[in-house]
């Protein structure tokens, strides 16, 4: 056993990259749920974003266009969810699951000709002096732009939800759509925008996996990260900064267990492999002392009958 082989600075820097896809998807879903809508289709939107971003990047050679395409594709897929839940008033849980099934199939169909293709690399930022600083350099100044984008998105979501009028309206819709409607807010329109935002974020998260984290295209490559993102929103009690914390915690436990394995720690591997999930449950139990709960109208269909 040799724990000295684990380098904490590298670990943190690495964690920021590993947590980015799930963070992006979770922030999107957080906004969706704040508006009172539960979209379980995150996995489907992520994988669709993954192939759309991959294909666009390979065809154009530009990761920027790829990420834009991924966001658009995720939002487009979420339009299906909009039609089902906002116009046809279908059950949100079932619609979300159907969306995941559909997205997995669709992405596999679209991706048939992209198996085994290597995408162009996405550049990391490189600021002279700053990037070379010890400790701080690798952690703060040596990532690709999407890592910063993810953190900026958390900050922006937090600020908008907390301080802006738009955030207030969004929360009002999520707490009581009937009251919000009575106050003259366009409940359905606000929810649609939230769902589209969630789709775009999930798409970005998916593209981050296929373009930077892995980078390659294979069917079903998101391998359940969308579900973790959903879990993360609940974990975070619908608070953006806590979602960031949760993403790092979850990614961190995974990375630490791999590190411990490589360092030869004598804990049975299968228990190490379980640990991210178990630790998440433990933290969740501790956090559940915090009584801030789900948006009151979460998952309920809204129909303006009056």
């Amino acid at each position: 056993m040799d724990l000295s082989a684990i380098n904490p600075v590298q670990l943190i820097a690495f964690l920021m990259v590993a947590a980015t896809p799930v963070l992006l998807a979770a922030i999107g879903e957080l906004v969706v749920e704040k508006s009172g809508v539960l979209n379980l289709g995150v996995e489907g939107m992520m994988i669709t974003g993954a192939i759309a971003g991959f294909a666009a990047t390979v065809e154009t050679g530009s990761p920027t266009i790829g990420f834009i395409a991924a966001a658009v594709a995720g939002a487009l897929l979420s339009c299906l969810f909009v039609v089902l839940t906002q116009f046809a008033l279908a059950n949100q849980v079932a619609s979300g699951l159907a969306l995941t099934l559909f997205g997995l199939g669709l992405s596999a169909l679209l991706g048939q000709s992209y198996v085994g293709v290597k995408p162009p690399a996405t550049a990391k930022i490189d600021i002279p002096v700053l990037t070379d600083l010890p400790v701080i350099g690798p952690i703060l100044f040596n990532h690709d732009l999407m890592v910063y984008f993810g953190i900026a998105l958390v900050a922006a979501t937090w600020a908008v939800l907390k301080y802006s009028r738009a955030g207030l309206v969004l929360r009002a819709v999520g707490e009581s759509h009937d009251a919000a409607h009575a106050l003259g807010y366009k409940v359905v329109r606000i929810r649609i925008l939230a769902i589209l935002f969630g789709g775009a974020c999930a798409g970005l998260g998916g593209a981050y996996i296929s373009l930077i984290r892995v980078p390659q295209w294979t069917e079903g490559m998101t391998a359940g990260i969308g579900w973790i993102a959903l879990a993360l929103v609940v974990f975070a009690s619908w608070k953006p900064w806590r979602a960031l914390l949760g993403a790092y915690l979850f990614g961190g436990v995974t990375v630490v267990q791999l590190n411990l394995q490589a360092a030869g720690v004598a804990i049975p591997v299968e228990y190490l492999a379980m640990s991210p999930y178990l630790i998440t449950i433990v933290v969740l139990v501790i956090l559940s002392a915090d009584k801030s709960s789900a948006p009151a109208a979460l998952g309920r269909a809204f129909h303006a009958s009056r």
Partner: protein
Amino acid sequence: MIGLERRPQPSRAWSMATPLVAVLATMLAGGLLFAALGKDPVEAIRTIFWEPLFGEFSFYYRPQLVVKGAPLVLIAIGLSLGFKAGIWNIGAEGQYIVGALTGAAVGLAFYPLESVFVFPLMVLAGAFGGWAWAMIPAILKTRFGTNEILVSLMLVYVAEQLLASMSLGLLKNPEGYGFPGSRNLQHYDSAHNAELIAGSGMHWGAAAALIAVIFAYVLMNRHMTGFHIRLTGEAPRAARFAGVSPTRLVLFCLGMSGALAGLAGLFEVSGPAGVVSIDFNVGYGFTAIIVAFLGRLHPVGILLAGALMALTYIGGDIAQSNLGLPSAAIQVFQGMLLFFLLAFDVLTNFRIRLGAGEVA
């Protein structure tokens, strides 16, 4: 502008007709998809829906519908109880795995003893395993207010690791030359969940699924607990005033769905699957969530929805093999079917009104 107007009463006619309309719409949209992939759309649709039921080899496929549908229905019935009360067990897949593990462990512990008591004990162990796994989120929820969606989902991943560990370690077949996976319970008569009538596909799991449907129907319509469940789902406050104990309801609903999922796992591992292996679980626990909602959380609806899902799986595999359709196309097709079923359901509760309608 198209508007929706709530019907005073859900329309019976539409609630019967919407599934048919949805299937027809799926055939149209799916046909377009298959045509776009360069396949004969009529032939593809026929293969998926007609071949398993009435085709040349339907004598084989019809029993397979039972084999494929039974675990889906059994799990979905359990889930529907909780869903009605607003208790979200998303982790049936984990309870299914643990039920299979505990049930198979009991059977394997008795090997090679032949006795009529082995299988009943396995059934008990399977139900207990699923129940116990579901009790973790249940107790955490009632004691600490922890969200059951997240805990039950996380426990799926834990159960998967446990399954891998068991098939590589404790339950590994000692005569398997070191390969992973347990002994085949199909070859151990006392533990084998064989077909009750040869060639019918009816095994104890299918029987249990039918019993569960009847049980759930009676519970929901004739029993106080069923009333409490519905009341809690529709008006939680009123339920509290009516003296419903949320704690007991959570324990009951999660426990019940866990036990049924555990049973489904046990019947699968001792029957059609035979072995505990790393990849024993195939997503029944998640598909059952869809089945529960497709069946509108109604026992009979769930039975039909389970049969429909099983049909698309079996027909889809036939279409892959006979027509060379990629499995992804089948997945998209299933997704479409769900979309249409969900979307057209609106007609049951709402009337479409043209003109002065107002959509917020």
